[in-house]
């Protein structure tokens, strides 16, 4: 009697255990069989693409006004703070006075002798002393900033753009030390009080991250040319350096061009037609 009941108990328990185990397995099989539609990520249909994005700046077409409008277009669209902007005391009370050395720049005007220190010859043509040279991130082929970044916040995208993931930047500024062009700026403070009008299409940055030109990756993704190109009245052309038929390659083929600090071997992707 006793033995029989134990036997039947074990049987029932065994069946119950199978039942318990079967439910998750059934669910798993069921979810697998009807889950044909899965989410897919892809590029925008209108996105512009290249094997290696590059820029050609025709310095002969630049003048003070064009430079000013390029600078303004870029900095406004990317919410780059302007330390000359008067702070709205109501919105941002107790804002410390600025240190002008800590300003943030994505694209700016530079003298020839600073932009091309290795090309400053003894009897350099007079025009170079007055031409406005626009400098920005060179999106180098061998970008030293990418190698220096300990968190891979700065990285090289497949299409050659040297980009920053602001989320990931820890503000160590190794990249700024590594960049031979001074293309990077550090947010020593919250930039928001110094932005005249925040453009909602692009995030601002926060205190403690580095920033720089992103070759308008967000514009290329929607099939539009970078802001500097649009504001430059033909002085700046952006295109695929690897494609011999592209606008930039045609320009480089027809004109003599120089690059900044070539001897360092960083292979900048910004060319200057002089």
């Amino acid at each position, binding site marked *: 009697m006793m033995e029989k009941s134990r036997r039947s108990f074990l049987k029932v328990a065994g069946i119950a255990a199978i039942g318990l185990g079967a439910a998750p397995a059934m669910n798993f099989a069921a979810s697998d069989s009807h889950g044909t539609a899965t989410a897919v*990520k892809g590029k925008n249909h209108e996105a512009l693409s290249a094997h290696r994005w590059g820029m050609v700046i025709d310095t002969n077409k630049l003048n003070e006004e064009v430079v000013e409008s390029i600078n303004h277009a870029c900095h406004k669209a990317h919410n780059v703070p302007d330390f000359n902007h008067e702070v709205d005391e109501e919105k941002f009370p107790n804002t410390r006075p600025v240190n002008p050395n800590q300003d943030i720049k994505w694209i700016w005007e530079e003298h020839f002798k600073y932009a091309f220190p290795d090309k400053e010859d003894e009897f350099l043509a007079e025009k170079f002393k007055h031409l406005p040279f626009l400098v920005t991130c060179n999106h180098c082929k061998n970008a030293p900033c990418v190698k220096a970044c300990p968190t891979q916040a700065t990285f090289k995208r497949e299409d050659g753009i040297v980009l920053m*993931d602001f989320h990931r930047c820890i503000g160590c500024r190794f990249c700024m030390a590594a960049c031979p062009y001074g293309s990077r700026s550090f947010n020593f403070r919250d930039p928001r009080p110094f932005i005249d009008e925040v453009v909602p299409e692009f*995030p601002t940055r926060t205190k403690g991250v580095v920033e720089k030109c992103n070759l308008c990756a967000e514009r290329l993704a929607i099939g539009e040319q970078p802001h500097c190109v649009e504001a430059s009245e033909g002085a700046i052309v952006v295109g695929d350096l690897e494609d011999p038929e592209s606008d930039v390659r045609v320009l480089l083929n027809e004109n003599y061009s120089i690059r900044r600090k070539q001897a360092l071997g960083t292979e900048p992707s910004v060319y200057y037609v002089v």
Partner: protein
Amino acid sequence: MNKNTIIAGLVIFVAAVLSPIWFNMVTTTQAAPEPELSAKAKAAKKCVLDKFDMRANHMSLLDDWRDSVVRDADRMYTAANGHEFNMSLSTGENSCLGCHEDKEKFCDSCHTYASVTPYCWECHTTPKEIK
């Protein structure tokens, strides 16, 4: 004697173990807020994932989106339900905030209740905030 001690001990033990339940019975707690959908979100009916998946996993989804947009330049998300979304928190009509227009009612009400402070808005902007 021994039996009574044991029973008394058990009663005290059970009461102590169930103390959170007693506590909730005598005190009133604030109910978890329901995220308030904007008219636009209500009209759209379909979100990126279904409601419960979204509630539980929106943070991982956003993390995934961020890497995809920044690193791979993949900005278009075709959801399992067939709808296309712009993988963006706050830019454009087809982004999260493009539909869920009111950040205070949609994001903040739950985040405040759950005492989480995501730092999205230190950089990302809401169109409302700008005005």
